[in-house]
């Protein structure tokens, strides 16, 4: 991982407003291909807003610069960002009744790859990735997220990550609501994506995912800002000491 001159993703001076309220108050990040960053912070600190805002959620007004593989994508709509290789795994994936996982994924894969994938080839690939994630093949025929359990939804998000092979992915609380077996499967998916050179930012407030996924960089996020950045050891320290000891840093506006 020595691509320091070619980060896959970076953002600078990102501020996000929801209505009148400033929720994200100036964030800078640089992610290299295959690099895993963890953004950890207490509930309500603005982590999810950051992830959704970076992807281009229409309800959020985002200021600052977002760069994907050297190109400025700040003002692009979410579908254009996705076609250029950006991905967001949702904390609460919505249901789309009547649309099967397979037909949705085929449309998404065709859109991202810029060409229709032949049905047979697509099917083979889909079944292989589902097997990697220990998913029943019958899942392909179910309606997207419709009546799925929390764990099933998260697996389908990871399935999409593996099928779409983005350059850069934001994973929003992908570990929440998972039992230990599901957590291991999801972690395996994330590690596979990293080995395919996808740069990733994991947004989480638990340390437990990090037992299975080893981040290169850990950021502590509080009150709309990154207040501290360190290596994997920082996650362990947070697990031990909580977030309170960092409050003064947050109040001071970062390190």
């Amino acid at each position: 991982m020595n691509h320091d001159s070619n980060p896959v993703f970076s953002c600078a001076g990102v501020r996000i407003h929801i209505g009148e309220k400033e929720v994200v108050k100036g964030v800078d990040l640089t992610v290299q291909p295959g690099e895993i960053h963890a953004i950890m912070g207490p509930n309500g600190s603005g982590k999810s807003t950051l992830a959704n805002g970076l992807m281009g959620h229409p309800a959020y007004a985002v200021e600052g610069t977002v760069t994907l593989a050297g190109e400025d994508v700040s003002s692009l709509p979410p579908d254009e960002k996705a076609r250029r290789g950006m991905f967001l795994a949702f904390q609460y994936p919505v249901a789309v009744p009547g649309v099967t996982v397979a037909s949705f994924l085929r449309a998404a894969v065709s859109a991202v790859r810029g060409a229709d994938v032949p049905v047979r080839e697509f099917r083979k690939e889909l079944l292989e990735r589902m097997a990697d994630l220990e998913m029943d093949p019958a899942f392909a025929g179910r309606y997207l997220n419709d009546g799925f359990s929390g764990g099933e939804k998260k697996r389908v998000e990871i399935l999409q990550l593996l099928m779409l092979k983005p350059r850069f992915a934001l994973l929003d609380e992908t570990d929440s609501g998972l039992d230990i077996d599901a957590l291991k499967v999801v972690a395996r998916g994330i590690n596979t994506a990293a080995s395919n050179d996808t740069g990733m930012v994991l947004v989480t407030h638990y340390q437990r995912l990090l037992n299975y996924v080893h981040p290169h960089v850990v950021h502590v996020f509080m009150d709309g800002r990154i207040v501290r950045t360190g290596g994997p050891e920082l996650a362990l320290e947070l697990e031990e000491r909580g977030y309170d000891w960092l409050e003064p840093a947050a109040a001071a506006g970062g390190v």
Partner: protein
Amino acid sequence: MASTPTVADIGSDYNRRYGFHDPEEYFMRTPKGLSHEVVEAISLLKKEPEWMREFRHKALDVFLAKPMPTWGDTAMLSEIDFDEITYYVRATEKQETSWDEVPENVKRTFDRLGIPEAERKFLAGVSAQYESEVVYHSVKEELTKQGVIFLDMDSGLREHEDIVRRHFATVIPAADNKFSALNSAVWSGGSFIYVPKNTEVAIPLQAYFRINAERMGQFERTLIIADEGAKVHYIEGCTAPVYSTNSLHSAVVELIAMKGARIRYTTIQNWSNNIYNMVTKRAVAHEDAVVEWVDGNIGSKLTMKYPAVILKGERAHGEVLSIAFAGPGQHQDAGAKMTHLAPNTTSKITSKSISKGTGRSSYRGLVKVRKGAHGCKTSVQCDALLIGGAARTDTYPTMEIAEDQVRVEHEARVSKIGDEQLFYLRSRGIRDDQARLMIVNGFIEPFVKELPMEYAVELNRLIELEMEGSVG
């Protein structure tokens, strides 16, 4: 209406003006407007038996006496001018319409749907009929072997008068409503089907297969009888837009499912947007019989249609699965009626509607359970999807339950294409318009999967056309 001759006038110069004395040679069409003379002319031309002639005349009296419905879209209803309609046009007459007169948007849709030339002209009302003779012949042979009768209604009356007389208007009497009375007075064309005991018709019967059929009529009349243990699926209409210069379509469809019989009746209605589509559809289901209405309404200006099942025999089951698409300027007022007369009967209504732009859709339903019809189950589910701020949807569900031991479920949902759904799909690279279409197609999926393959494909393509330009 000074220019319209009075009833007496029409009668007095009929022979001179219309060659009425020799209908075969000279009769082409009735004059505009409705009168006993017009009804007489239709019946005479068809050389009908006396009872049918009388039936028509009585029905006309009922029609003239009945007021227009005071419910539904009364504003749109009041725009129907009964004096401006031609009630009968002989099928073999060269149509007045020429291809050049067919509106551009209808032609364009034919193009996009890939409708063959001959079929286009039929659908646009330019040619008198469209026949697929090769297909028809093999179908006909098979049916004849089984003893199945499949004719247009006029031929049915001529060739099987006894069966027709026994059942005609027994499910929907002329006096049922103003439009059933109108149809009873001037009906022409439609299908007549009789399936003998324990006979299963393997392929869906379609009006297309009928040879020498009258052109898909303004006032078609269909009667389907499935004898004990028989099974049949009938498909009416098509996904291509059907253009007509005559603005009123008022059909009557009667189904009779004898003990243990199954009838499915599938409709895809796509009349052009100048048509008032007033249809009365009702079935009787005897003991252990199953009747299913699969009803799709895409076109027309105003549709009022509430397919009904009278559950007359114990354990009979009735089902209505419908979708309506109301684009700008359209009102789809559709629904269902279930009448539980016998114990342990079951019914299910699933109604889905999409309103786009200024389009308006209404669900209007009635579930009735008679005292003594214990052990009945009924479920009603209405889902409405709104696209754009001006679209409108209403539900008018009515339940009249006179029995305690019944299980009733009712659920109504209205949704919009949600920002969160769109964002989710778009974050996977899917473009905004494709994402919207995907959501709409998902919404109607439970309906589409009940259609034969070629209809399903066509319907999806049609919805795609209807959705174009709906962004924002």
